[in-house]
């Protein structure tokens, strides 16, 4: 009898959990999504470029900003995001209008950034390109040829269809449960998040791959990323564009630097050798490590972090000789 009640309790417990997780996903009870909500507004400058009404002037300071949701400013008011803060600081210094074209978009990867760069650098002709690099920019499609295809044909690339073999193994079954049960997925992510905060990573899943195999120097993904960067750097050099790359940390994991040893080693190894670019990969700017995140489980930078990043970028730009011609 007691065993029966126990089984009934476990069943009820799991069912209730499944229902509540689904309710949370449908209704976002704690408004978590709105905390990092993306208030997307096309800038006036981008509209001008897209409709060919933009006029290039000789003494303009033109800065192109590329990146993903970190640079885009997810979770903060748009006026506090990096591109706006940089614009304000430079305008107050130079006492003239500074054009900042913000092409950062949530979930942009390196290929997306390159695609934007290629298209808009031809018409905007920036003096500076500032790229906010995030370690997950290595995800997604990085096939360089597809970028060119996108630019030429402006069509969506269809995924290759693969025949799926029927698999009855335990691994397949657990995968099926994982894919069907929202509760299982929720718990798995939650456990991984908690472990991450304490500096541990389970040996599976996206984060593990990102911090281990994906950044192996001879790994396919990194090689594809490096190829894209080679192209970007070459084009910047050809067109006399200064290129600044800011490697953004996960702001809720500043205390767990060890998780990113492989990532930083590969990125540093690549960019430090490159001439003519400004590369920033420095978390010492972020004192009091708990104060720069949106929330404990969200690595996006908050308003304070955006301010610190912007200050550092402006400081590096000011050292550049190209800026001297704009000083009055």
């Amino acid at each position: 009898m007691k065993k029966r009640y126990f089984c009934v309790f476990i069943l009820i417990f799991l069912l209730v959990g499944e229902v509540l997780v689904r309710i949370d996903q449908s209704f976002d009870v704690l408004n978590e999504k709105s905390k990092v909500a993306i208030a997307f507004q096309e800038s006036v400058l981008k509209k001008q470029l897209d409709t060919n009404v933009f006029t290039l002037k000789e003494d303009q300071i033109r800065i192109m900003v590329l990146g993903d949701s970190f640079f885009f400013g997810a979770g903060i008011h748009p006026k506090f995001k990096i591109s706006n803060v940089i614009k304000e600081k430079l305008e107050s210094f130079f006492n003239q209008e500074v054009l900042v074209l913000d092409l950062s978009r949530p979930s942009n990867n390196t290929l997306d950034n390159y695609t934007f760069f290629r298209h808009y650098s031809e018409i905007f002709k920036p003096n500076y390109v500032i790229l906010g690099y995030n370690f997950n920019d290595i995800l997604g499609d990085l096939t360089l040829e597809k970028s060119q295809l996108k630019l030429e044909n402006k069509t969506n690339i269809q995924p290759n269809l693969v025949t799926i073999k029927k698999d009855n193994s335990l691994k397949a079954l657990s995968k099926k449960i994982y894919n069907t049960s929202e509760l299982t997925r929720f718990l798995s992510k939650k456990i991984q998040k908690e472990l991450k905060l304490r500096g541990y990573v389970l040996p599976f899943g996206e984060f593990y791959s990102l911090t281990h195999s994906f950044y192996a120097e001879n790994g396919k993904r990194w090689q594809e990323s490096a190829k894209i960067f080679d192209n970007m750097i070459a084009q910047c050099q050809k067109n006399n564009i200064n290129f600044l790359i800011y490697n953004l940390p996960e702001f809720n994991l500043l205390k767990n630097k060890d998780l990113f040893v492989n990532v930083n080693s590969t990125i540093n190894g690549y960019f430090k050798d490159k001439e003519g670019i400004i590369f920033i990969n420095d978390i010492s700017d972020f004192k009091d490590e708990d104060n720069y995140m949106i929330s404990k489980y969200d690595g996006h930078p908050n308003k304070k972090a955006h301010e610190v990043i912007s200050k550092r970028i402006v400081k590096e730009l000011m050292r550049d000789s190209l800026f001297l011609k704009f000083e009055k």
Partner: protein
Amino acid sequence: MLFNSLDFAVFLPVVFVLYWYLLKNNLKAQNLFLLVASYFFYGWWDYRFLALIAFSTCVDFFIGIALQKQENPFKRKYLLWLSILINLGFLGFFKYYNFFAENFVDAFSLFGTKLNITSLHIILPVGISFYTFQTLSYTIDVYHKKLKPTHNFIVFASFVSFFPQLVAGPIERATHLLPQFYTKRIKTHANVIDGLRQILWGLFKKVVIADNCAEIANQIFNNSQDYSGSTLFLGAFFFTFQIYGDFSGYSDIAIGTAKLFGFDLKKNFAVPYFSRDIGEFWRRWHISLSTWFRDYLYIPLGGSQGSMLSKIRNVFIIFIVSGFWHGANWTFIFWGFLNALYFLPLLLLNKNRNNLDHVAKNTILPSFKDFTSIIITFFMTVFAWIFFRATSLNHAFQIVSEIFSASFFTYPSILPKIFYLVVFMIAVEWFTRAKEYPLAYSSSQTKLKKIIDFILISILIWSIVIWNSNKEVEFIYFQF
């Protein structure tokens, strides 16, 4: 360590296992162990605070014994006042020095005199307001011969520092808690289950309701100049549930934890937001503090006996002192004053002892009259909480004036869905209002009730996992 922290989640089971399985039926060893565990728990915040609680314990222990031996009424009174002055002296210094210093300087500057009094960087020892009142109740009861003083220092020290209720109450009376340290404690299945269930309910109120309401209330109060009257009112509404969830949640965890060790602590909250008048509210909110003030301040002053003027005086004294107990700020004093204004008409019309029983006692829904009374009392309380939460009187009046402006009739700019969880909590508390707490354990339940019970427990556990605010937010009453 916070009750909703990993530290406590490790501390509690370790202490529980050692207490019941290693020390078994050895009462002396259990009391000593509780003392050590309590000092460890308290020292976790800041080990420097231990000296203060130890000193306070020693003073009252020896004064208690001296009071028993002393027959001379003047000397007895002297000993009592010594205890009061030492305890309140420490409380006054740590909590109120800067408040008085700053106000003296401001007062003298009105007359053109500039005083040079430096503010001190004083860290307020956690729980000082609570354990001070607890030990004071001991010496006062010994003085009045309601209680024989204990000659067992370990027992007395354990009573003062008992970790479940040390930092934020309930403020236990020596007559109730002290004898329990002399009685053999028996671990029963029912006690353990009941304790765990009450802890679960307390955690839900704290982690899901209070901490999430806090985020919204803080956002609104900290940026009050940017919000309309309707949104500010929402802020006050969410603060109302933040403070309730926080404090009553803590009390439930404290009482549940005490049950795990075989102790019975007094109820501290009895669904106060279902009160039909302010008199009932104050019989249901922070019961241990309000009864302390009633027994040790209000009644000695004459209570509700005597002339009209003395009744009015006593009401204002008790509520203002109660407000001041909460913190060194004019906002708390004003909050107390406001509650006195609310209470006074009831006292003068002899209606302060109405509504002694649960609302809608044998019915599911309240009558229209009761419902209206509940709503009016609730909104009066919400209004008063604005002053409690605001950072200054100016801030409070700015918020109040915006609420009572045309912007109250605009659509609020924030509509948090946590509101539905608050409604859920209210519904659960409504349907279980006659119980000690909603999940109160009963070994005899029908099958259907058992299933409903399972579902409710599952909802609470999953709510804590899914909807915790992801931040370790301190209990509000720790700052008092």
